[in-house]
């Protein structure tokens, strides 16, 4: 066996091992839809593997045969030529049959993938360069709220996401849950999925959207239905008023130093629309669209110099003394 075949096989064997560890993997399905896609993929992979092996075996046998020794190039055996022609056409017909069957397999998978449930929980995601605005819709405006860069969904219930863009084209993709769908300027797309297991799944923008395309991720957190309802009720409320003196100072700085011009914190005077809603930033898992974990240290690093971590994003570097920085971190951290 040549070395490259061995290394190829080794990679194929290693494939499921390496791929299942990440939280952002098409091979680690955690929803009906991603399972369905993996199922289709495995059928295609199997057929492809068989076809490729057959081609290589026939090619190898053909090369090892010893024929035509001493024959001139144009001395052809007519019966062989005729038989070869028939075999080639037969193989062509087989190929046609295989692709037609695969087309139907694909279409069946597609139909169940895009099946719609009218009772799905609806949320709307608006893509921005380079973050995700998330709106939870409900029957009444009192139950609707906006958050950013994180979606929470109930396990076992269909979720419908309406996708729009505020600027360029982005693509919504949580491989563990389902395939991707583009967020296209001037049109609304839809995608549905039903998570199977609770967990945190990472999603990432998949359509090139400019300078910081690489840093446009988000977390999709699947919760048990009762946990989800509790979270939703909490998220719908306005921000808590800070009690600790440092956090109070942080709130004033947030207003006074221009943060509030771009960010909204519901229940306060901060009502900017350019950046993500920070009402409950203290309970999110990441900041800067999945770029950093939401820890006090990361928050500090981000606020101190956003242009170092994510060059080109809209957030400017604000001149802050270290005491002021700590106060703002304190304030944001307690926005649970």
């Amino acid at each position, binding site marked *: 066996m040549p070395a*490259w075949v061995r290394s190829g096989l080794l990679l194929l064997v290693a494939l499921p091992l390496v791929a299942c560890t990440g939280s952002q993997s098409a091979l680690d399905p955690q929803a009906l839809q991603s399972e369905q896609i993996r199922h289709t993929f495995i059928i295609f992979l199997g057929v492809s593997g068989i076809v490729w092996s057959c081609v290589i075996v026939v090619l190898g046998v053909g090369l090892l045969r010893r*024929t035509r020794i001493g024959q001139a190039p144009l001395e052809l055996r007519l019966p062989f030529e005729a038989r070869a022609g028939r*075999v080639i056409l037969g193989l062509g017909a087989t190929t046609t049959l295989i692709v037609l069957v*695969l087309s139907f397999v694909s*279409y069946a998978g597609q139909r169940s993938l895009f099946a719609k449930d009218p009772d799905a929980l609806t949320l709307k995601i608006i893509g921005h*360069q380079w973050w995700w605005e998330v709106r939870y819709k409900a029957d009444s405006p009192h139950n609707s709220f906006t958050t950013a860069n994180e979606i929470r969904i109930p396990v076992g219930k269909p979720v419908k996401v309406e996708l729009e863009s505020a600027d360029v084209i982005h693509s919504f993709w949580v491989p563990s849950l389902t*395939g991707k769908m583009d967020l*296209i300027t001037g049109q609304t*797309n839809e995608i549905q999925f039903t998570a199977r297991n609770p967990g945190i799944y990472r999603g990432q923008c998949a359509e090139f959207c400019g300078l910081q395309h690489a840093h446009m991720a988000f977390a999709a957190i699947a919760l048990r239905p009762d946990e989800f309802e509790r979270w939703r009720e909490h998220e719908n409320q306005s921000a808590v008023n800070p009690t600790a003196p440092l956090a109070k100072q942080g709130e004033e700085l947030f207003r006074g130093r221009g943060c509030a011009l771009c960010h909204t914190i519901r229940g306060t005077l901060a009502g900017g629309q350019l950046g993500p809603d920070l009402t409950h930033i203290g309970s999110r898992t990441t900041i800067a669209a999945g770029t950093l974990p939401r820890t006090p240290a990361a928050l500090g690093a981000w606020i101190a110099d956003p242009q170092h971590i994510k060059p080109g994003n809209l957030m400017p570097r604000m001149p802050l003394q270290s005491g002021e920085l700590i106060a703002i971190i304190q304030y944001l951290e307690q926005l649970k």
Partner: protein
Amino acid sequence: MSMAAEQRDVRDDALHGLQLAARLESIWRTPPGLTGALMSVDHKVIGRRYIVTAFTFLVLGGLLAILMRIQLSGAENRLLSPDLYNQVFTMHGSTMMFLFAVPVMEAFAVYLVPLMVGTRNIAFPRLNAFSYWMFLFGGCFLWISFLFNVGPDVGWFAYTPLSSLQFNPSKRADVWAQMITFTEVAALAVAVEIIVTVFKQRAPGMTLDRIPLFVWSMLVTAFLVMFAMPSIMVASTTLILDRLVSTRFYDPSSGGNVLLWQHLFWFFGHPEVYIIFIPATGMVSMILATFARRPVIGYPVIVLSLIATGFLSFGLWVHHMFVTGLPHLAAGLFTASSMLIAVPSGLQIFCWIATLWDGRPVYRTPLLFVLGFIVIFVIGGLSGVMVASVPIDTQVHDTYFVVAHFHYVLIGGAVFPLVGAVYYWFPKICGRMLSERLGRWNFWLAFFGFNIAFFPMHILGLMGMPRRVYTYTLEMGWERLNLLSSVGAVMFALSFAVLLANAIYSLRKGTPANDNPWDASTLEWATASPPPPQNFDRIPIVTHREPLWADGDTLPVVAGLSAERREVLLTSLAEAEPQIREASPEPSIWPLLTAIATTIFFIGSIFTPWAVLWGTPPMAITLIGWFWPTGSKEDEE
């Protein structure tokens, strides 16, 4: 015609071998000196320039690939800034597609097709010169812009609205769009020349079913170019209009549509893949016949497959848009049409394997590259069937899985045959053999390097790694496979260094090649290596699909062509029966001047719409110069 004129018109049948050769050479040769070089209309001179220029762009694009692979070899690498990285991947894609892959195939056609069909020059030789200059200027324009930090950064596909003025206020997107215009003009010109050369200038007796398979493949490709390129020219022109004079083709707030761009781009973009791949299949068929020591089995099947591929390639552009929210039934139909193109490609592969099955393979470097092609391309074709499936595509679209897929198709399907073709035709073009020892190094480095570089990308894509990201974090678990891929990329790059070293060494020290060093069967091997300016002293008559195997040293020839002026023989379309003798243009400086005027016009018009106004008169003047009657014999008659 007067008596005196008739006497002056010496025909080739009045002269003996050496006398005729010397006379034709003095008529057909490129004038000496720099001015002469700039005036050349010899398809071999222009073809050689085209090939060398395209390979230069390959080296440049390859260096960018290495930069990207270094950047991605480790998590959170900061070698390239995001801004530079975006320019680098855009330049890599644009260079490889527009300045290397398409031009290099056309370059080989410009050199080889006239020789293979047995004529003295390509049809419209001055247009050919113009085409080369446009290609050269367009490529330089792109790369000089890049060096001045105005390189495009919107991807080789330049999706709106990212490429609109609002999100890309510098000139970067304009540079990209106008580079397209340059290369499309060049490509369309060559397509016209190829079609006319194949239809009207074939040697007598070269009926449709005796046309060499590479020539068939280039004929199909030329038609693809003619139908696909106008779509991208409309796209790039409307983009420039949007950016320059505020038309609103792609602005949804004024009734424009951003998806329109994707339709126009991919209606060109998908046939583009076949514009690159089909010529490569032609090369494979030629190399295979020579080294399997027998004609390719299934000539009609291969020709019909080429034509079928050409037609089908226009019916599958939507598979690039499966995640844009299309109606599901439509998407499903495009799945079927995309998979169906596997049938003609499969038929060709079956024919080649059958040829090898019955043949007596001679394992020289060109054949090694063809075998490598089959192994790699079949993987790429099968992963292509996977991405044609809508459900699978929703996962792998815009991930490294697709990056792996199309490199398997484009490098495996086109570059491997191309390198094989370099080894195969180098002796014809340069008169010396390439070193076989270095050739083997070249092949095995390329084969292992390529697979190590690109196979892991399939897995990375499934592990969730999107394309066009300048970095990733360690927690994603993508680092080891990326590092492996980068090591493979360096190996693959080394294989091209070996090729370059081999070419430089062999040009000086290689074994001199005779007319037909591989004992091949087609007409380009019936003349000297390298061929004289007139290609053939006497135009051959073709009596068999494999003329040199059938007739050997006693190839019948045509008599009666002028030995006083440039003349080619025109034949009928289907049966290649001689029709008339036609004058072929003399060298001229005007194609270069026209190209310069056009370049000024094109570059000016990304800055001001007025360039359209003041840029036109110089073009008109140069075109008048180009077509000014020179008082040649034909004009007097």
